[in-house]
């Protein structure tokens, strides 16, 4: 799979899907998926940071001594997160407000540091960029899916469009417990699908 560029993307999207397989970055996954749009926004934000940090880490990998590897990666990631924060504040303020605290917290998302450490620091810049894209897409896909499930069951809407009247929705799916429960069943379904294929 090393030589296949498409394989790298597919790897992040399916084989090593950060949410459904690696179980990383659970905090934003659970917290920001109250609606499909929020899930999508959070996924895209994380993807931006992943791609940028993977690229830069891969470019700088031979300049960074091993012992200060982790702090350097953290600084690089934090820089991109802050950049993202300022850009979002300027151009998509409403999305920034609904994601709130979880934008700065991308810094401590284990997915981002994990990919920098396990992929970008060992591979060439272009592959690292693709890996960032793949993992980012996988994360976005998972978050959007979870957001769609919760929004539909909780308020009868999908991306803000009414599917069935709100009073038939089970509010609990938008609240905290619903996040855990929806993810539990999504995971169970994914497990089942993977065993069959």
């Amino acid at each position: 799979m090393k030589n296949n560029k498409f394989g790298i993307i597919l790897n992040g999207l399916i084989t090593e899907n950060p949410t459904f397989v690696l179980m990383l970055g659970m905090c934003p996954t659970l917290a920001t998926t109250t609606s499909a749009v929020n899930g999508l926004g959070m996924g895209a934000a994380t993807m931006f940071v992943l791609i940028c940090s993977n690229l830069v880490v891969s470019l700088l990998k031979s300049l960074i001594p091993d012992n200060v590897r982790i702090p350097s990666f953290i600084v690089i990631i934090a820089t991109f997160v802050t950049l993202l924060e300022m850009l979002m504040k300027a151009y998509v303020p409403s999305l920034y407000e609904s994601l709130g605290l979880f934008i700065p917290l991308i810094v401590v998302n284990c997915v981002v540091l994990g990919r920098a450490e396990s992929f970008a620091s060992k591979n060439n810049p272009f592959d690292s960029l693709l890996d960032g894209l793949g993992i980012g897409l996988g994360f976005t896909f998972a978050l959007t899916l979870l957001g769609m499930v919760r929004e539909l069951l909780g308020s009868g809407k999908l991306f803000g469009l009414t599917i069935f009247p709100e009073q038939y929705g089970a509010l609990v799916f938008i609240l905290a417990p619903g996040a855990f429960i929806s993810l539990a069943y999504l995971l169970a379904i994914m497990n089942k699908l993977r065993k069959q294929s």
Partner: protein
Amino acid sequence: MKKLQSTLVNMVLVLGIIAIVAATLLAWVNQLTAEPIRLAEVAKQQTAIKEVTPAFDAVGKIISYTDETGQNINCYPVLNQNKCVGIAVESYSNAGFNGYIQVMVGFDMNGNIVNYSVLKQAETPGLGTKMVDWFKTDKAAQSILGKNPAKGLRVSKDGGEIDAITAATISSRAFLDAVNRAYTYYQKSLDAVQTAQN
């Protein structure tokens, strides 16, 4: 390229350079985005003012107050052909389920609520966040539009006339607290506007 060795000099140098580059980059972008961020905030405020007041052609001079806790409350009188037709008040409450909420409330010249717009809130999604349009919906006794908060608006649980958001009484109380505070400052600014006009 050969990997740099982990000597003290190398480590300090590399970390130092990365940190300096990062800080410079951030300072630069911070300056770059300062203006768009300010513009976005102003645009949001303007849209809110437009949304909550009767039709107008100009926004008059902003009247600012500082309340007993040191919070700023801005009142925006809106003018139509140089006559004040309403006032939008940027009010707040600290009693929300997750603390601070900020609301823009618009009044006409008789003190009736024209409309409102929630500017900032961190309430529970699916519960308290419904305040964004709950109190505008003309259903049962939910709506506060057209009401005059002279006697203070309260939720029905506290003996008032407004239906609270289902399962989010705390958020509803906080919202009405902000509306009532807005009314207090509406009255103050109304006096100021009228003395200025006469």
